[in-house]
């Protein structure tokens, strides 16, 4: 099997049953595996809510390791709609020409750097710095801030060996508190300042609310972007024909991006809290229990996707849910798509071929499912 092949562990259960319940700190989660069920459930926010105790819709649950509500992520309409309106335009800035030009400068420099080296550990020395520098554009803060974030390493929210240990996140939370105070004392044109000056339902956003948006921006776009970048690089290393295709037909790049995020599905699933006794896919879901929308499984659903386990780079119809679905679809998706667009364009332009020298898979465990989501280590050589 190729190193950039990501098997679908859900297939049999998805086709035969459609859901599977896993334990999580005595608050079980029923994973919904079929695309149609995932979409229907994601859309029905009244029965499947996000605005429960902070951290509870995340799997593994973060209720014991954080109190700050992530915004707009952990709220429901109508409040969610208000928060979303507040930040939507800001999160579409990645489409601006200057933003794309700055991103191109960053990513071209990163690729030039690895082309000079004999060997690169892609996660630590390429994807993490790339993700961190790109994030300075999204927050509109000086690029030098990225050096602090890179210093935190890839495991900033939880310990590497214990997913229930959130003590590592203290560095991030303290940092964000300091940044909010800085922006409050001297407003600028960054995201902190915009939020501090904003109102929702006639009231100024509190610092706790501002923190909730910023934490979401940091957390939602870290592992996901790092995995998308790393996995895409691994894929093109093993599929030089695909890189050649991008050189010859750059117009397929937008489709290639959607297909890579479908195939890799950097976020496996996201939970919801059931508000009343109901049924999903013949599963009796009781009030105050949890279900999860398994994007990774839905994106391999053969009822919708032809050859779901193949990367079809120019897949024309691709109704994937890798960025979620309905009200809570990924706020950072525009940024993520631009990062991938510039990355693919730069690889096609500057890199001749790439070799994988060594690797270690990052396998998530969800009950009986073992899912490869990325790599713990990926050593590569980039050649002109």
């Amino acid at each position: 099997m190729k190193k950039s092949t990501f098997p679908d562990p859900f297939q049999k259960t998805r086709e035969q049953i459609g859901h599977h319940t896993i334990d999580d700190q005595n608050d079980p989660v029923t994973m919904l595996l079929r695309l149609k069920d995932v979409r229907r459930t994601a859309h029905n926010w009244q029965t499947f809510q996000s605005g429960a105790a902070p951290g509870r819709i995340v799997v593994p649950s973060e209720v014991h390791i954080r109190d700050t509500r992530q915004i707009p992520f952990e709220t429901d309409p109508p409040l969610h709609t208000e928060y979303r309106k507040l930040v939507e335009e800001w999160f579409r800035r990645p489409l601006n020409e200057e933003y794309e030009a700055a991103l191109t400068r960053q990513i071209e420099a990163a690729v030039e750097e690895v082309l000079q080296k004999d060997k690169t550990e892609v996660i630590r020395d390429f994807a993490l710095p790339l993700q961190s520098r790109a994030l300075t554009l999204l927050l509109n803060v000086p690029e030098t801030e990225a050096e602090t974030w890179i210093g935190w390493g890839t495991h900033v929210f939880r310990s590497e060996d214990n997913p229930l240990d959130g003590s590592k996140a203290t560095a991030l939370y303290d940092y964000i508190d300091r940044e909010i105070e800085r922006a409050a004392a001297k407003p600028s044109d960054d995201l902190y300042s915009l939020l501090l000056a904003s109102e929702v339902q006639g009231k100024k956003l509190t610092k706790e609310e501002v923190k909730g948006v910023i934490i979401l921006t940091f957390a939602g776009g870290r592992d996901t972007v790092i995995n998308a970048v790393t996995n895409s690089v691994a894929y093109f290393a093993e599929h030089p024909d695909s890189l050649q295709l991008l050189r010859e037909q750059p117009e397929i790049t937008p489709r290639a991006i959607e297909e890579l995020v479908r195939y890799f599905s950097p976020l496996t699933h996201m939970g919801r809290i059931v508000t009343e006794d109901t049924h999903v896919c013949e599963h009796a879901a009781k009030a105050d229990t949890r279900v999860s929308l398994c994007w990774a499984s839905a994106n391999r659903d053969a009822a919708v996707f032809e050859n779901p386990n193949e990367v079809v780079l120019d897949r024309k119809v691709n109704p994937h849910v890798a960025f979620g679905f309905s009200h809570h679809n990924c706020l950072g998706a525009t940024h993520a798509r631009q990062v991938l667009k510039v990355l693919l364009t730069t690889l096609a332009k500057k890199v001749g071929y790439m070799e994988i020298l060594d690797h270690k898979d990052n396998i998530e465990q969800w009950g009986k499912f073992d899912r490869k989501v990325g790599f713990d280590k990926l050593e590569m050589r980039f050649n002109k």
Partner: protein
Amino acid sequence: MKKITFITTDNETVTLEGSSGSVMELAVANNIKGIEGNCGGVCSCATCHVHVAPEFMKQVGKPGEIENDMLEFDDNVNEYSRLCCQINVADAPDGLVLKVAGEE
């Protein structure tokens, strides 16, 4: 060349000309308000939802199954709904009128 007219939710009328690509791409290239085309036209985001003027519906045709599944969950869906990334400019009737779906 085909003429396609968009009516935005602000009731602004814009007529564009095009010969290739999707109607969504034509709209995005000309900054038609309310047509975002976030997914680049692969039918995964429903941010290019339009209502086809009834007199053109027969020629434009009904949405396919996958497109229909996307529209099912859109608050502004009606019998004239289409995702315009799934309509080719070349196949569109000349003079087509599309109303951008959304809150009015």
